[in-house]
């Protein structure tokens, strides 16, 4: 997801959190002091009280009461997210546990954020652990003021926050040692988990922790000169590598509570459909089935939940249901008809996002007229969606992997008819997400709460885990929206672009959500056009149509850039090819002097790949693309071939500019994975289609995802930089498909205009 200031055209970043805050509050009826914000002094005290009452590890060091004392001594200016007590726990044996304020679902913040804190703390890295935070206000994204993992923002928004948290904790440990030794704190230094004093005497952080809690929490701290960094920038293995390589890592799906039951839901075949008639006699006869419940489903629909003592009986129960569905009140989209409708729309005037003089188009010496088609895509994270709800009379506790626990907690409270402060969300490690666990409607959470509520009404007091099958996931909506792009480009013999008339047709992702008010301007959803035009200074008119379609849509890793990068980078390449120019040289010339990061990334990929120097194997061609998303730039130079009409990608060389790198291993893994996911959008079967309102795909057999046999060689090179870090969860995805397509066009002379790739 992407909430970047530059996409908002003129809205300054510092306005965004408050705007977002107000919108979310309004939409969800939130109690500001409880669920989202607690930045004033009163709320800070509330936070401490709530934390203690809920048994939350107040961090801080070993003793809860003392920790409260320590926090009470904190300057009033410190906000909850600036308090070490909520983020650092030091045990007597020196183990440092860092709470992370984001969901880790593979991107590595579970290791990256602790690295940042441990750097300033001078911790012994071998003793550092990490845990997920919950929906406590302290764990809101400090820039957005809400709980949010997305937009490749974790490191970007929490780099300074975690450095300061580490430095504050360090200062308290030093203060404790100074008091114990009766020396001035300035005479002390820290090293690898110890405070070192005059004559080389040492005290471990574990031994100092309790005394350190009684030290005042400093408001202002001096951070290290980056030249002193010993952890930040060092390739570092994941803290969870052992657990994840031995079956010991628990995810949301692995939560086990005493007496817990499992629910599987029969959902209407068309989004928003309802139950017309139900015969559940066979389902109820299955051993282990406890209840068959009619429950609300997403978009005003109705489904049937089978609650059983395990997934298998629940699924068998579902298979045994005889249901007739009523879909008379909802529209039944058909992707073939939609495509025809989108094509028509693309030729009509839409809302104008960018304006330029299109008069030169008519008389241009060269023209490209192009239409692109991008399908709906499912996220299909490996861990199927799930949410466990323990509902008591006046309170509830939830367990699930989620990118927005605060919003989910409020939606749960609303569904359950509880006060938001009586709903506790336990964020669990998630088996992937790619956007599917950041739902403005909280669909899978609301549904699970509806089931828990119906179960309680039916006399079931046990906790209920609602678990989706893979079929439920593939058919369950919230797809990357289908898009049609249309472009008319006029240019001269030297490749100078005289006019570029571009139209995008696709559903708005944020319409109707709490994000609409600041993401949609003049009828244009910023997430649909991000990635257009930049970094090329061309006269572009950009029009947008957002048709309403009865298909739930959502951000999908790298969001708008999943399609805009493809259109932009294949078209730029085509202009270069048509005017017989080298595509790298042409891009560099078009960028001028305004885009040094793009240039550096592209030039690094070019140099490392051997582009233009190395002799390619017979039948292979180079393909190039560069794209900025979420403020990071990735350039790819790829080698590909086409055999019997089937394209193959052999190797990928990446040039990355994400400013300062916290963990190079993490960046490398993110680029490898994002490149493969980008390649996945090119492969046969990477499309969700609907016929008469029903999704036609159901599992990995007919919705194809890339496998090891698709994985090319990937080498990742990072441009050195000391500038404040940006994110890398998404930016590796967008330029891959166009780089591949450009290589194919070098071979066939024709740019593929449809994903998954269709070589006409």
């Amino acid at each position, binding site marked *: 997801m992407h909430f970047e200031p530059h996409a908002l055209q003129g809205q300054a970043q510092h306005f965004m959190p408050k705007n977002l805050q107000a919108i979310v509050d309004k939409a969800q009826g939130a109690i500001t002091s409880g669920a989202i914000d607690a930045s004033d002094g009163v709320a800070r005290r509330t936070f401490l009280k709530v934390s203690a009452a809920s048994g939350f590890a107040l961090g801080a060091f070993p003793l809860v009461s003392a920790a409260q004392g320590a926090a009470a001594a904190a300057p009033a200016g410190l906000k909850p997210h600036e308090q070490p007590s909520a983020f650092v726990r030091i045990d007597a044996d020196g183990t440092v546990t860092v709470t992370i304020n984001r969901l880790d*679902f593979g991107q590595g913040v579970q290791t990256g954020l602790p690295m940042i804190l441990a750097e300033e703390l001078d911790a012994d890295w071998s003793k550092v652990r990490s845990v997920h935070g919950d929906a406590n206000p302290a764990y809101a994204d400090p820039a957005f003021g809400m709980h949010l993992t997305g937009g490749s923002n974790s490191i970007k928004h929490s780099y300074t926050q975690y450095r300061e948290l580490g430095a504050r904790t360090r200062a308290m440990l030093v203060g404790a040692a100074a008091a114990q030794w009766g020396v001035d704190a300035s005479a002390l230094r820290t090293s690898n988990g110890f405070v070192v004093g005059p004559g080389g005497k040492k005290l471990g952080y574990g031994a100092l922790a309790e005394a350190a809690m009684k030290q005042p929490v400093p408001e202002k701290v001096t951070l290290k000169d980056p030249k002193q960094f010993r952890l930040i920038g060092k390739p570092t293995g994941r803290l969870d590598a052992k657990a994840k*390589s031995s079956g010991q890592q628990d995810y949301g799906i692995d939560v086990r509570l005493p007496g817990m039951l499992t629910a599987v839901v029969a959902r209407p075949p068309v989004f928003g459909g309802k139950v017309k008639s139900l015969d559940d006699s066979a389902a109820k006869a299955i051993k282990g089935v406890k209840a068959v419940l009619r429950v609300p489903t997403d978009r005003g629909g109705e489904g049937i939940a089978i609650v059983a003592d395990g997934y298998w009986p629940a699924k068998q129960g579902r298979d045994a249901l005889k249901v007739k569905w009523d879909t008379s009140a909802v529209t039944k989209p058909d992707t073939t008809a939609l495509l025809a409708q989108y094509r028509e729309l693309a030729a009509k005037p839409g809302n104008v996002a960018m304006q330029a003089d299109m008069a030169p188009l008519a008389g241009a010496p060269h023209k490209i007229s192009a239409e692109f088609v991008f399908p709906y895509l499912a996220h299909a994270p490996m*861990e199927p969606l799930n949410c466990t709800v323990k509902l008591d009379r006046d309170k509830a506790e939830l367990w699930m992997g989620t990118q927005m626990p605060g919003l989910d907690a409020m939606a749960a409270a609303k569904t359950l008819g509880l006060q938001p402060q009586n709903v506790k969300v336990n964020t669990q490690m998630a088996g*992937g997400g790619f956007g599917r666990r950041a739902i403005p409607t909280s669909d899978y959470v609301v549904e699970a709460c509806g089931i828990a509520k119906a179960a309680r009404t039916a006399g079931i007091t046990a906790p209920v885990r609602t678990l989706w099958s893979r079929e439920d996931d593939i058919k369950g909506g919230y797809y990357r929206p289908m898009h049609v792009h249309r472009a008319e480009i006029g240019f001269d013999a030297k490749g100078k672009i005289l006019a570029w008339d571009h139209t995008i047709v696709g559903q708005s992702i944020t319409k109707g959500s709490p994000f609409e008010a600041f993401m949609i301007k003049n009828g244009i959803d910023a997430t649909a056009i991000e990635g257009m035009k930049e970094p090329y200074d061309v006269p572009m008119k950009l029009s947008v149509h957002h048709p309403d379609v009865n298909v739930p849509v959502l951000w999908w890793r790298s969001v708008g850039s999943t399609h805009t990068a493809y259109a932009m980078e294949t078209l730029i390449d085509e202009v270069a090819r048509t005017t017989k120019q080298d595509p790298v040289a042409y891009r560099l010339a078009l960028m001028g002097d305004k885009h040094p990061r793009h240039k550096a990334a592209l030039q690094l990929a070019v140099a490392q790949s051997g582009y233009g120097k190395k002799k390619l194997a017979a039948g292979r061609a180079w393909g190039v693309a560069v794209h900025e998303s979420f403020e990071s730039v990735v350039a790819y130079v790829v080698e590909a071939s086409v055999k019997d009409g089937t394209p193959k990608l052999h190797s990928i060389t990446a040039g990355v500019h994400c400013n300062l790198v916290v963990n190079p291993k993490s960046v490398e893994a993110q680029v490898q994975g994002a490149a493969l996911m980008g390649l996945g959008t090119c492969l046969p079967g990477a499309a969700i289609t609907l016929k008469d309102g029903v999704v036609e795909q159901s599992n990995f057999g007919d919705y194809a995802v890339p496998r090891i046999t698709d994985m090319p060689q990937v080498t990742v090179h990072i441009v050195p930089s000391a500038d404040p870090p940006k994110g890398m969860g998404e930016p590796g995805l967008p330029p891959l498909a166009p780089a591949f397509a450009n290589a194919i066009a070098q071979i066939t002379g024709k740019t593929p205009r449809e994903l998954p790739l269709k070589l006409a």
Partner: protein
Amino acid sequence: MPTLNINGKDTAVDADESTPILWALRDTLGMTGTKFGCGQALCGACTVHLNGAPVRSCITPISAAAGQKITTIEAIAADDKVGKAVHAAWVKHDVAQCGYCQSGQIMSATALLKGKKKPTDADIDAAMAGNVCRCGTYVRIRAAIHDAAKTLA
């Protein structure tokens, strides 16, 4: 009540005989290291060994495992010579990202190395093609398998 031999121990399982091994492990016995991914043997997340051979536990009923030896990730990474080498290589190469598919990947990789001491890239691709990883850790999976093979040689 059916009895299964799991990780060398005979274990009574209070579940219907048609129950897939996956759900007997996860829901009945609380052994959650083996993961649910697709339910149709299409992704490999649920891979266990049946008499040493990799099987997809999501479609294999417990009736098919009677009298045979089931090995799961919990034992393979802790007690098995080849499995331990694979585990160590996985950690060394930092293979996992979200990690959800890795139990299955490790089970398939271990079975491969038990049958082929020095697999080529093509052998690895053939043996691992049934295991999906959405994070795209395949480059490191290949490297880790080669590395584990070296350690075991």
